[in-house]
C-alpha cells in the first residue's frame, strides 16, 4: 500500500511540474514565476490572454480528460478481463466521431458539435447494450458486438469523408485525431461535472469489480448481483469516455495503455491502483499534448496522434509480457 501511495505522490508531483511547463512554453515564452502568478493570483498583465485564455484551460482539460480516459479504460479492462479492451475499441469513440464528422462534413453549425458527439457516444453505447443483451451480459459478446458496430460506423464516416469536398473533410479528419488546442474553460467545466458525477461511482464499484474478476461463479457466490454490477460498470465507463470525446474528440490509447502501466507499477486492481491510474492518465495526456505542441513547432500535431505513436510500441511490449503469461 505504501508503494502505491508513493507512486501516487510522485504522479501528482509530475502533474504539477508538467502543468507549469504547459503554462510556460509556447510561441510566447513566459517565466515560470510570471506564468504561475498570472494564472493564479495576479490576473491581467502582458501574459493574461496567453496564459488564462489559451494555456491554463488547455492544461486543465488535459488533466481532467486524462483522468476520465484512464479510469474508463481500467473499468473496462477489469470487467472484460482482456488487456486489449478499451472504450474506443468497442466503438464509443466512433459513434461520437460519426456524428461530429457528419456536422463538419455537411457544414452544419459547429456550436452543436459537442452535444452531437456526446449523443453519438451515448447512443452507440446504448445500441451495444441492447444488441449484446441476450439472457444477460457477456463481456466477450459485448466486445464482438462493439467491433461490429465500430465497423458499421466507420463505414458511415468513410462515406462522409468520400462524399464531401476536401476542405470540410480535412476539418473532420483533424477533429477525428483528437486535439486539445482549442480547449476552453467551458470544456473544463463540462469535464469537471462529468468527473464529479462518475468518478465517485467508479471508486465505489472497485470492490465489486475485484470480486467479479474471480469469475462469474465466484462473484455470485460472494453475493455480487452480476447483471446490475456489469450495467453499472459499463455505464460509468462509457459515460467517462463519452464526456471526453464530446469535449476534445477521440484520443486513442490513453484508455488502453494507462491501466497497464498502473498495473505493472502497483499490482492488481484496488482503490489505490485506480487512483494511480487516474493520475497517470493525467500525466500521459499532459505530456503527449506538450510533445504534440512542441515537436514540430510551429506545426501543431493533434495530441491523439502522439498518444498513439507513443502508446503503440509500449503496447507491443505489454503484449509480449502477456504472451509469456499465457
Amino acid at each position, binding site marked *: 500500500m505504501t508503494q502505491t501511495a508513493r507512486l501516487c505522490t510522485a504522479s501528482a508531483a509530475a502533474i504539477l511540474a508538467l502543468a507549469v511547463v504547459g503554462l510556460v512554453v509556447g510561441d510566447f515564452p513566459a517565466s515560470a514565476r510570471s506564468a504561475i502568478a498570472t494564472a493564479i493570483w495576479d490576473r491581467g498583465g502582458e501574459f493574461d490572454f496567453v496564459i488564462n485564455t489559451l494555456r491554463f484551460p488547455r492544461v486543465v482539460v488535459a488533466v481532467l480528460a486524462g483522468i476520465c480516459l484512464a479510469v474508463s479504460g481500467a473499468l473496462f479492462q477489469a470487467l472484460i478481463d482482456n488487456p*486489449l479492451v478499451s472504450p474506443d*475499441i468497442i466503438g464509443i469513440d466512433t459513434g461520437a466521431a460519426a456524428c461530429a464528422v457528419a456536422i463538419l462534413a455537411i457544414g452544419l453549425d459547429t456550436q452543436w458539435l459537442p452535444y452531437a458527439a456526446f449523443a453519438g457516444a451515448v447512443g452507440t453505447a446504448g445500441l451495444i447494450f441492447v*444488441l*449484446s443483451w*441476450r439472457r444477460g451480459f*457477456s463481456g*466477450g*459478446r459485448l466486445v*464482438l*458486438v462493439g*467491433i*461490429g*458496430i465500430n*465497423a*458499421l460506423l*466507420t*463505414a458511415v464516416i*468513410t*462515406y462522409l*469523408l*468520400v462524399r464531401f469536398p*476536401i476542405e470540410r*473533410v*480535412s476539418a473532420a*479528419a*483533424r477533429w*477525428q*485525431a483528437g486535439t486539445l488546442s482549442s480547449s476552453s474553460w467551458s470544456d473544463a467545466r463540462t469535464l469537471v461535472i462529468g468527473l464529479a458525477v462518475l468518478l465517485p461511482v467508479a471508486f465505489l464499484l472497485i470492490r465489486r469489480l475485484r470480486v467479479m474478476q474471480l469469475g462469474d461463479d465466484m462473484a455470485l457466490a460472494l453475493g455480487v448481483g452480476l447483471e446490475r454490477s456489469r450495467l453499472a460498470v459499463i455505464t460509468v465507463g462509457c459515460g467517462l469516455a463519452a464526456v471526453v470525446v464530446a469535449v476534445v474528440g477521440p484520443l*486513442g*490509447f490513453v484508455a488502453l495503455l494507462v491501466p497497464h502501466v498502473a498495473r505493472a507499477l502497483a499490482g492488481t486492481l484496488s482503490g489505490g491502483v485506480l487512483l494511480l491510474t487516474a493520475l497517470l492518465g493525467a500525466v500521459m495526456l499532459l505530456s503527449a499534448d506538450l510533445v504534440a505542441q512542441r515537436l514540430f513547432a510551429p*506545426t501543431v*500535431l*493533434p495530441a*491523439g*496522434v502522439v498518444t*498513439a*505513436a507513443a502508446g*503503440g*510500441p509500449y*503496447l*507491443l511490449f505489454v*503484449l*509480449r509480457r*502477456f*504472451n*509469456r503469461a*499465457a
Partner: protein
Amino acid sequence: MLRCHAVSLPLAGALLFCVGLLSLRYGVLGIDIATVWDAIWDYDRSDQGQVVVRELRVPRTIIGMLAGAGFAVAGALTQGVTRNPLGAPGILGTNAGAAFAVVTAIYSAGITTPAGYVWFAFAGALGATVLVYLVASAGAGGPTPVKLALAGAVVSALLGSWTAALLLLDLETLDQARFWLAGSISGRGTEEVELLLPVIAVALVVALFMGRQVNALSLGEEVATGLGQRTALVRAIAGLCVVALAGSAVAMAGPVAFVGLAVPHIVRSVVGPDYRWIILYSAILGPCMLLGADVVGRLIVAPTELQVGIVCAAVGAPFLIYLVRGTKLAQL
C-alpha cells in the same frame, strides 16, 4: 453428402456468372445484355456502350472476382488455421499494413494511380503480417491463435494511428487516399490484373489443395501432430497463402472489410465443417459477394457511386452481430 456438395457446385458457378453479367450490365451508363455480349465476342470500337464495357467494366469485374476470391479464401484459411471464428485476413494486419504503405507512398512519393499503389499495398500487407507473426511468436508456446489475434489487433491499431497522422499532415494526401481507403474497384485497368494474376492464381491453387491439412489442423495443434502432420510447415504454407491472397486482394480493391469474415461462415453453414469444400465454395461465393456489393453500390446512389468497401461493411457488420448473438460464438 459429398455428391450433394458436388451437385450444388454448378449452382454456385451459375450464381457467379449471373453476378458477373450484372456487373457488366449495370452502372452509371445502362447497357443492355446484347451490347455486353457483342463487346465480348464481337467487339466494335465505334459503339460507345461496347467501349465502356470492354475498357471499364470488364477489368472492374475481373478485379472484383479476383479480390473477392482472395479475401474469402484467405479468410477461410485464417479461420481454419487459427481456430478462431473471427479470423479474417484483416485481423492479421493486412488491411492496416496496406493502408499505411499506400498512404506513405502518396505522401512521400506522390504516387496517385491505383496501378501505382499495387506494390506498395502488397508490400505493406506482407510487412504487417510478418510483424504480427513475429510479435505473436515471441514468448513461450509459439504463435497460438489467441496471441495471433491480439498481436494483429495491436499492430493494426498502431499502423492505423500512424496512417491518420500522415493524412493530417498533408491535405493532398488525404484527398488522394480517402477514395482508396474506402475500398473500391472502380477506375482499375488491366495492368493490375496482369501484375497480380499469377500471384493470386498460384496461391488459390495451393489453397484448394490444402483442405485436408487445414481439416486436421482445425482439430488443434496436438491432435494434428498426433495424426502425423508437420504442423509448423502446414501453418507456414497456409500463412504464405493468406498473405499472397489477402495482399493481392487489398492491393487491387483497397481495404475491404467483412468479405473474408462473412463468406467462410455463410459457406460453412451450407457445406459443414469440411475445409476442402469450404475453401472451394469460398473461392466462388467470395467474388459473388464482392461484385454483388459493387453492383449495389453503383445503383443505390446513382448517378454517383458508393464504394464497395462501404457497402460490404454496411451489409457485413449486421451479419457479424447476428453471428455473435447466435449461440455458436457465446463462449468467445
